[in-house]
């Protein structure tokens, strides 16, 4: 509830306007030679980081774009990209 999210187009807005899109885990894997386990991991397994994680958000009540932010899951505060990748 207390979350604010910075949309690259609209700026810092109330968290209510956004929909969560899960952890960042890279593009869809190639289907060739993909094992069921690897696929299941890609779709369903989360890292559940206690700390800064890169994640996807959708600006549903706004511009309608998908983007990533870095968020500290223990405080719900956004973290600057540079700081997150230290």
């Amino acid at each position, binding site marked *: 509830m207390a979350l604010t999210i910075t949309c690259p187009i609209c700026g810092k807005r109330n968290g209510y306007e956004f929909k969560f899109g899960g952890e960042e885990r890279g593009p869809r894997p190639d289907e060739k030679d993909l094992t069921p386990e690897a696929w299941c991991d890609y779709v369903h397994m989360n890292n559940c980081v206690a700390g800064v994680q890169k994640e996807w958000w*959708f600006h549903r009540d706004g511009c309608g774009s998908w983007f990533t932010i870095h968020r500290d899951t223990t405080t719900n505060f956004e973290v600057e990209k540079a700081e997150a990748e230290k």
Partner: protein
Amino acid sequence: MMNRLNNLATLQIDSSRKISFIFRGKRYYGLEGDTIATALYSNGIRIFARSLKYHRPRGLYSLDGECSNTCMEVDGIPNVRCENTLLKDAMEIKEQNVKGSLENDKMSVIDKMDWMMPAGFYYNTMHKPAKIWPIAMKQIRKVAGLGTLSPDFKMTGKYDEIFPTTDVCVIGGGPAGMSAALSAAGKGLRVILLESRPVLGGFFEYRLKEYKEGQSFHERARELAAQVEEAENIRVFTHASMIGAYNNNLITGFQIGRESDCFDERYIEIRAQSVIVATGCIERPLLFENNERPGIMQTGCALRMAHTYGLLPGKEAVFSIGHDLGLETAISLYDLGLKISCVADIRREGQDSELVAQLRERNIELLKGSVATMAHGAKQVNKVTIATVNGTASQDYNCDLLVASAGLTPVTSAITVVRGRLKYDDHTGYFLPDQMPEKMHATGRVLGLDNALAIESSGRLAGLQAAFDCKACSIAEIGEAENELEKLPGPTQGTKLVIAPVKGRKSFICFDEDTTIKNINQAIDKGFDVPELIKRFTSAGTGPGQGGIPGHNLPLYVAQYQKLPSISIRSTTVRPPIVPTLLSTYAGTNHAMFKRTPMDEMQREDGGVFRNIGVWQRARYFSNDFSCKAEIENVRSNVGILDGSTLGKFRISGPDAVKALERVFVSDMSKIKEGRVKYSAMCNDDGCVIDDGIIVKQGENDFYFTTSTGRAGSTIEWIRYHTRYDGWDFHMVNLTDSMGVINLSGPNARKVLEKIVDIDISNEAFGFSEYREFKIKDTISVRAMRLGFVGELSYELHVPSSYMKSVWLMLNEAGKEFNIRNFGVEAQNVLRMEKCHIILGQESEQRTNLLDVGLGFLWDRNKPKAKTVGAVALRQAESDQTRLKLVGFKMENSGRAPRDGSLIVDEKVRGYICTARDSFTLKEGVGMALVEGDLTKIGTRLEIYEDECGDDRIYGKVVQMPLYDPEGTRMKM
């Protein structure tokens, strides 16, 4: 009714305006401005409630609702805090937790059996042997909990919600809060000021003592309040309590409306750049035997009763206090006519010499280093034992009022809920802010200040600190403000006494949960060593008052009992909602919003019966015959017209549009021919089917597609999500609201349509599954498709919303000679069910995949490069025999159709009915069901269990799909 004091500047009541109310079935009167509690008090009511466990009598104690003492049932709502609720005309008020009457509670005998119920009584006893628990539980449930809610109670009233954004949010409208608001507003910032009482003024408001020459504290409060109210950029919410604070400076609260407001209560959620906590102090309850007997109240309560409500709270009083505010109260109340037997002050020294002199002038006995040890009187206090703080000498005083308070303690919940840290301060005996959360500033009495000028100065400083957070103030200005504050008196020394020299069997540390000092000792002796655990084991501070009464006493007492150094004292955690809040306030207004299609008005005129379906209102029936016989037969034999405007409608275009479509639709999109309709479906990553619709090509790299009604809102999000890594060049437009859809169905559909269009629509020119774009009367662009959802010759016309009415009228005019008529969503549902065309969500649930519903033929397995959503999972599910599959069935022996959702059973549940109806067309009960794999063979007997059918089963038989017109000739004619 008691006589009220008149001519006090501080009064908030209007003695010319009486308000009548009902208490325990009898009519009473209060005055405008009264709370329920003060109105009852003025009518001689002294016992307001019976306590949770021991049914002890409870009375007015703090006036700010920090305990459940004055919780009552008001207009059917239990646990209303009467001291915070303004009296309104015709309120119906009842007592709670009473067997008999408040004066004679049959359960009060439990009070004598407290020795049977030590701390953790329930934890220790009721679970062994295990079979005793169900019996014990029933008994406990009868006595547990405060207040009852009638099962057929309907909440009335208006509940609103607002979500303001501001630069600075100030919590607390006392002198510090108002000064802070003014100084932040002076920097051009927008300020929101929350005050929990009905008027601004806080600690100054109700005091008539001199603030400076010629001005009382009350007058100073009014002066500040006038400045606040004048300031254009300060928005004031009075009678508004904070209920939560969160990081990112989100503050939640609720406001109680006045008679003139458009709401009874409203939820407030404030997003601020910077927050100022100016919540002041409450009093720390004094612990002694029977410390909660009616007739005992805190100093602020006694003073506000007189000054704010004009009620002298007793005739003959004893004071046992630990702070100068107690002396000031004694003097003020004496001057108003209260007889005072003595004032016992915990402090041996350190009293304000002027106040001491004033007591002496009035011949009021001041006993330094003394404290009340026991209150006497069965239902109301009639005598008090006063002893020296070390318990050596004691003396009894008769009285009907005992004003008792150990001292003050800052209200810090706004800081601790955001994980700010407090530190015990030896000098004041307070928990003071140590580490403040980011962009949050404490001010005034929260910092331990009690000099009036220092409180205001500290407020101005906090206002500048908040302005600095908003980049509207310089460091130098803050430095100046800090210097100004440093020259003023700092915090004075506070009392450390936690408990009078008593054993504590009847010394209540928590009123809500009836927790005594003895209970705390028992918990510590059992090995619970930290306040957080002791709180849980004894439930002290877990009641409606959220630790308002035990809050800071509990950690202080625990430290004293364990002989811990004061540095290690930690206060317990509070959590939102800090103040009890109605769920209806959180819920806010029910706006009952829905969308209407362009045909809404016309269908209502035609007698449509509307239902909410998803976000829409749709015509479900066109008569009171909800079996829709006439509507269905008309489509099968003649021609019907349906409003399908709720369908999701989208345009997707651009060089990579095909790639995007192939990513989400299971079919091969590269082969869509111009002028043809492609039917396809979308799956999620588990292969579960989430949507179906048609796609048509309207130009090079330019497509138009539909989705089901329910998915329209999330389609763009879905497609963008699943292409988010690809950087593809395509564009989407949601046309759902800008386009309407008319479905013209039935064997006579062509005869109707050809009358209003100029193009050849014969079966040869515009065949089944084809797509045409044309104009009606050279003006109205129409996208027409020949589909067969209901299993008859059908035209689906997609028309700009603004032209929908015109086309609708033209078709109805053209169809007049055939007796064209409306059909609604239910008729369509039966028609398509007979044809075994599925509706997702009806013939599928969360786990149903594309193959389960027999749509596997849509899936093109030869496009792995497209990485179609769901393809991997579908490949894995192909060999899975354990899944529920869709079958068609008809009922045995011409039996009636089962209700939707009924179960298919044998020894266990084997599936369920999706949709089933008594079909007029087929003249028997038919339907579709999802069943386990071994039940899918044609001819399999299905045993159907309907809700509450007992042992009566009905039976069906699996048959070939579709049930109606298996060759599909009718929709292709």
